[in-house]
């Protein structure tokens, strides 16, 4: 299974090739992948529902607790099915939506890669893998929002989405690490199984705050909600998939996943229900400000995400049922509505609902799909959305804390949502026909299949909730979320109760609001100045502040002068090493002074070389004397019988001299640039550095806290690594990973040097003569 999922990345990478083979039908071919995975998940479903969960083990780096193990229980099964089924629909839909787009292959790469990351996220058992997949979804989402990269707004929105979610990702990482430390395990299955109560742990509060920050940014909870409407710059298939059905629910998934272990405390209930309810109300309230159909849907998605968070916060058995039902219902209708929005945009050339009207006759199928999906959004029987909403209201009425507040918020939000649903279902399709930029006609089949399927799903599940094993699936999911065995039986009719009455009233008020929408909007525009000071303004000023700060510190620390860099680095080193060596340990000199005459000679040569290099006015002389120092060091290595080091030192020294000689030609004439005061400062810093390193070496020599690792290396070099040259065995065997890293660093440095030289060279031959650089090449060296 893991292989099948990870193969998706290969599939994504090969998408340009598939385009060459299959042309317009590539989307259909790619859609086979999620469809296949969905079929596989369905085949596992009976076993998961029977046993509770299924663990597919795959160790990756066992010594660090990193595994690729997949945990399949009710919750991940529900999410996995949503991701794969929606994925197949969206891929088919995107094939029609972006049919003649030149970059459709690039789109497919990012979309399929996202799909795989999201699946990995909901299936991962290891905390590390969960985090990696989490970040991958942020990155692919960034690429997809910025898909139209020629558009500056799209780029800005993509960056904003990335910053907000990745900043949250950092908090999440801290939270996951704390979770791992507190529970003593890096596996979700073990964490969920264990007896010890994490709620009592001293790390509970910081852990919960970090995890919530990660979840809230990802799932666009107030006050981090602003990135989601901006993310609507993405092509509509992306909005339908990432920004309503899947990615934005990743945070919700995480909260639901950890609910059995972390939920139920006063802190959890307080934060989640209040933030969730606030998000719900604000999302619904801001939605009716907008006439752009995608923004309308985006804010209504924020409302739904808030609802889900609130339900997790309430945490009663009823709320758990409502949570899974609402989750499924929302994905079905919101996905369909987004795709309808895409059809309208695609066919009419505008996203403004007030510019549309009377399209019913021209696009009958789209109109029906929109009506069904929107009625589900409004919560009108007999659609599935109705069941979800009834359960939601019912759980709010049964909340243990903040009951009045939650009921009020939920009631107002549902009125506003109903108005939004009517706007989307009726406004474009009924009334007077408007002139639109494009001549509208019915969408192609490929764009209708997906939304039609989802709309039919909303209808069928509403009429017959027991159908398709939905009860069993939701029971299993609710059981994973609550941590206790639950029985979910959905039905359309629960009898006349408070929730039903609230529903009926809100339907009526919502419809009135829809009728007077234009007036309401005019009044709401008076609020614009207040909205300008919302969280987004805070984000903007913070980002500006960061840019200003980094400009300031760049001017101060990285101003392009080599001498400045060295000074900053040395002072930092002196401060750090000096702090720990002088203040935290006292320097120790416990060794015998036992030097031979030839050692003194070699050391003296080195000192002479250094002295000459710093005082000479000839560059060539300086290079040579630095070379003398280098060769003396090689000599020391030989004296202390380290032939490998000596050879390396000799070779490096030789090549350094050669490189220096080559560079010398490019430097300007030698001159005194620094004042004598600056030179005294440099001298002091240099002397301090020298003394400090000397102290460090002497201290390190005297302190022997642990058994030196070299003993192990020497003993095992021949029997384990089959090599007698320990230096080489360390490089290629014991510490091969470090060497691999160093190889990459070396390669990067070389490429950097080559690129910089070629770039400057190119500038010069274009007649711009390297003005950007501090070193001019005009003056030939006459040394």
């Amino acid at each position, binding site marked *: 299974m893991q292989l099948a999922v990870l193969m998706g990345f290969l599939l994504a990478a090969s998408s340009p090739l598939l385009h060459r083979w299959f042309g317009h039908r590539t989307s259909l071919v790619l859609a086979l992948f999620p469809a296949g995975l969905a079929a596989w998940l369905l085949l596992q479903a009976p076993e998961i529902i029977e046993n509770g969960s299924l663990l597919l083990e795959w160790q990756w*780096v*066992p*010594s660090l607790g990193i595994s690729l193990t997949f945990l399949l229980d009710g919750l991940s099964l529900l999410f996995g099915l949503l991701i794969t089924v929606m994925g197949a629909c969206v891929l088919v839909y995107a094939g029609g939506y972006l049919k003649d787009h030149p970059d459709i292959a690039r789109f497919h790469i990012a979309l399929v890669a996202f799909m795989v990351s999201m699946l990995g996220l909901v299936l991962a058992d290891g905390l590390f893998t969960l985090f990696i997949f989490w970040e991958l979804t942020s990155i692919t989402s960034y690429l997809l929002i910025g898909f139209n990269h020629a558009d500056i707004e799209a780029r800005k929105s993509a960056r904003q989405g990335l910053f907000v979610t990745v900043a949250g990702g950092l908090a999440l990482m801290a939270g996951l690490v704390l979770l791992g430390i507190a529970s003593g395990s890096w596996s979700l299955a073990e964490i969920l199984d264990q007896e010890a109560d994490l709620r009592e742990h001293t790390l509970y509060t910081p852990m919960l705050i970090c995890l919530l920050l990660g979840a809230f940014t990802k799932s666009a909870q107030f006050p981090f909600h602003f990135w989601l409407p901006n993310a609507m710059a993405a092509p509509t298939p992306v909005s339908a998939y990432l920004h309503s059905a899947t990615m934005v629910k990743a945070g919700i998934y995480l909260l639901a996943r950890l609910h059995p272990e972390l939920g139920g405390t006063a802190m959890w209930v307080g934060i989640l229900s209040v933030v969730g309810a606030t998000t719900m109300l604000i999302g619904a309230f801001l939605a009716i400000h907008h006439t752009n159909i995608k923004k309308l849907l985006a804010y209504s998605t924020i409302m739904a995400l808030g609802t889900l968070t609130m339900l997790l916060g309430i945490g009663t058995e009823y709320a758990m049922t409502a949570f899974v039902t609402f989750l499924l219902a929302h994905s079905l209708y919101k996905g369909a509505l987004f795709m309808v929005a895409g059809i309208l945009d695609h066919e009419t050339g505008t996203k403004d609902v007030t510019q549309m009207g009377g399209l019913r006759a021209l696009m009958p199928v789209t109109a029906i799909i929109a009506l069904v999906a929107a009625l589900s959004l409004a919560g009108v029987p007999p659609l599935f959305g109705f069941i979800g909403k009834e359960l939601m209201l019912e759980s709010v009425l049964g909340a243990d804390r903040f009951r009045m507040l939650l009921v009020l918020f939920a009631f107002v939000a549902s009125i506003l949502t109903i108005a939004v649903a009517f706007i989307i279902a009726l406004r474009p399709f009924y009334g007077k026909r408007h002139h639109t930029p494009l001549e509208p006609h019915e969408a192609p089949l490929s764009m209708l299949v997906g939304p039609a399927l989802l709309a039919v799903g909303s209808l069928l599940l509403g009429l017959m909730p027991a159908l398709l094993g939905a009860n069993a699936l939701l029971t299993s999911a609710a059981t994973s979320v609550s941590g206790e065995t639950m029985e979910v039986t959905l039905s359309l009719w629960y009898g006349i109760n408070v929730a039903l009455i609230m529903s009926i009233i809100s339907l009526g008020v919502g419809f009135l609001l829809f009728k007077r929408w234009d007036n309401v909007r005019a009044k709401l525009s008076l609020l614009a100045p207040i909205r300008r000071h919302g969280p987004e303004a805070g984000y903007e000023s913070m980002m500006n502040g960061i840019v200003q700060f980094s400009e300031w510190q760049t001017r101060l620390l990285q101003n392009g002068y080599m001498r400045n860099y060295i000074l900053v680095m040395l002072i930092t080193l002196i401060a750090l090493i000096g702090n720990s060596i002088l203040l935290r340990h006292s320097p120790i000199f416990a060794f015998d002074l036992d030097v031979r005459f030839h050692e003194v000679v070699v050391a003296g040569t080195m000192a002479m070389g250094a002295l000459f290099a710093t005082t000479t006015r000839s560059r060539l002389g300086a290079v040579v004397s630095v070379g003398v120092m280098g060769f003396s060091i090689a000599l020391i290595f030989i004296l202390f019988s380290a*032939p*490998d080091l000596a*050879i*390396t030192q000799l*070779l*490096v020294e*030789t*090549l350094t001299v*050669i*490189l220096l000689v*080559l*560079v010398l*030609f*490019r430097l300007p004439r030698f001159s005194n640039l620094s004042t004598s005061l600056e030179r005294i400062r440099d001298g002091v810093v240099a002397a301090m550095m020298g003394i400090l390193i000397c102290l460090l070496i002497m201290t390190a020599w005297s302190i022997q806290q642990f058994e030196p690792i070299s003993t192990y290396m020497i003993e095992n070099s021949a029997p384990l*690594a*089959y*090599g*007698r*040259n320990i*230096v*080489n*065995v360390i*490089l*290629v*065997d014991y510490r*091969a*990973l470090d*060497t*691999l890293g160093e*190889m*990459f660093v*070396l*390669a990067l*440095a*070389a*490429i950097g*040097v*080559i690129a910089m*030289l*070629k770039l*400057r*060279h190119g500038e*010069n*031959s274009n007649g711009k003569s390297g003005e950007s650089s501090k070193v001019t*090449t005009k003056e030939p060296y006459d040394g």
Partner: protein
Amino acid sequence: MVKSGTIILNTAARLLMPLQLLFSVFLLLRGHDEPGGGFIAGLVAAGAFTLYLFAFGVSATKEVLRMVDPRDLIGIGLLLGMISVVPAWFMGQPFLTAQWWTIPVIDFKASTPLIFDIGVYFAVLGSVTGMVMTLMEVDKDEP
């Protein structure tokens, strides 16, 4: 300016380069047991090319290298390094666990550390030669 060398340098370089390269391969292969290894061998080989560069200039050295750009050598080195990582996976062991095989007839010990070391060799050789060569190339073309 770096000019092409004198007769003595030219003759010496022509003779020394093959010897140096041979020596570098020798150092590379014996490195696991005696002083040597990929890093040192790579430096020696880079020294060989640098000597040749000083003696005959950039274009002649490029001809000696034929189709191989030093920058490609860096890539080859990194690739070999990564390849040596993989076999352990197939044996069900952690990443980078050394694998040893003995080739029967010539009694040669082949191993992933050796492949890795050859990777280091190429990466070092490519990096140093690439840098020196670019420096000289840029130098030569300037007024």
